[in-house]
């Protein structure tokens, strides 16, 4: 093997082999995802401490969220993880058409998730559940009777704490989805230009890692936020 390897398409000059380049990219992405874990981790810590302090308020707050919408979004997101994984598979096996197809489907599922999320947020604001608002009317000193989700006065401040955490955590997650949508658009554009083949597909794989990470965050958010008060509904 000569000291100066012949030029391989997709191999940056500071790497010796494609293997080394792929390994560097993968480890680098994982280091980034670990910082992301810490980023979300602080919020999960806040959630844990407040839930143990205000168990009743958290159950009631969770009860105010829509399980059907949350469940739909969970299915949409896990499905998008599957299509992303299929996209990686298509890239690795050099199937250009399939790669573009799966990336577009992943992007559509991402937009579906964000659409459902915005419906949820709109409903919450309408119901005076966005924490900046309150159902409490300072003039009549009573809860607003037009609000269908009247929160018991005793735990009102606890429920507001839950709702702050709900909006913070799902908002940060939704922001990651928006970034992910931008990433998918870039990947689709690169795939259309024929940049990827069975030898060079690191951007797809690394984009996939990001996408699956966002999915994992939601896998934890769904039961913790939506389901902790679900038993209040069913009366078991």
């Amino acid at each position, binding site marked *: 093997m000569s000291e100066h390897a012949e030029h391989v398409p997709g191999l940056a000059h500071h790497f010796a082999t494609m*293997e080394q380049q*792929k*390994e560097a990219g*993968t*480890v680098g992405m*994982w*280091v980034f*995802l*670990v910082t992301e*874990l*810490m980023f979300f*981790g*602080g919020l*999960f*810590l806040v959630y*844990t*401490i407040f*839930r*143990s*302090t205000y168990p009743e308020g958290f159950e009631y707050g969770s009860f105010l969220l829509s*399980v059907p919408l949350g*469940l739909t979004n*969970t*299915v949409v997101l*896990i*499905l998008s*993880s*599957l299509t*992303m*994984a*299929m996209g990686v*598979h298509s890239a*690795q*096996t050099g199937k250009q058409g399939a790669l573009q197809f799966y990336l577009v489907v992943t992007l559509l599922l991402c937009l579906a998730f964000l659409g459902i999320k915005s419906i949820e947020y709109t409903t919450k604001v309408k119901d005076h559940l966005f924490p900046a608002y309150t159902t409490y009317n300072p003039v009549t000193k009573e809860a607003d009777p037009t609000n269908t989700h009247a929160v018991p006065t005793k735990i009102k401040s606890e429920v507001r704490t839950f709702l702050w955490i709900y909006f913070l955590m799902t908002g940060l997650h939704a922001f990651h989805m928006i970034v992910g949508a931008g990433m998918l658009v870039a990947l689709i554009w690169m795939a259309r230009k024929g940049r990827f083949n*069975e030898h060079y597909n690191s951007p797809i*794989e690394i984009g*996939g*890692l990001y996408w*699956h*990470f966002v*999915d*994992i965050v939601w*896998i*934890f958010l*769904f*039961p*913790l936020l939506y*389901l*902790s008060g*679900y*038993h209040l*509904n*069913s009366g*078991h």
Partner: protein
Amino acid sequence: MSEHHVVPVKTYLTIFGALMVGTVLTVTVAKYNFGSLNVLIALTIASIKATLVILFFMHVYYSSKLTKVVIGAGIFWFAILIIMTITDYRVRQNWHIGLGTVEKPIAANEKQAAPQHSNSMPNGGH
């Protein structure tokens, strides 16, 4: 040197099926109230789902030792964040309860109400 590993489609579909089963399970279980076990059950199912995603969708099962060490170190550090903070928090609350709460003058209209234990953190003056 391992040649570029391509995960078969069948594996992806199996994992997807397992994730769907986990989702249905976590919703079904949430209909019942197991008290303080609720969180534990929810987190166990979510952790299993997350592990499946990490190992197979994210290819960590087939990854190099270096990648696995980076992930392991990250999760370990995250565990320090959660466990140490919660331990500290709980110990401080017990310390507060052990010392008792500062008595407040009781207003006339509050006299009939049952005594309530303050759940708030101790502040500097106590």
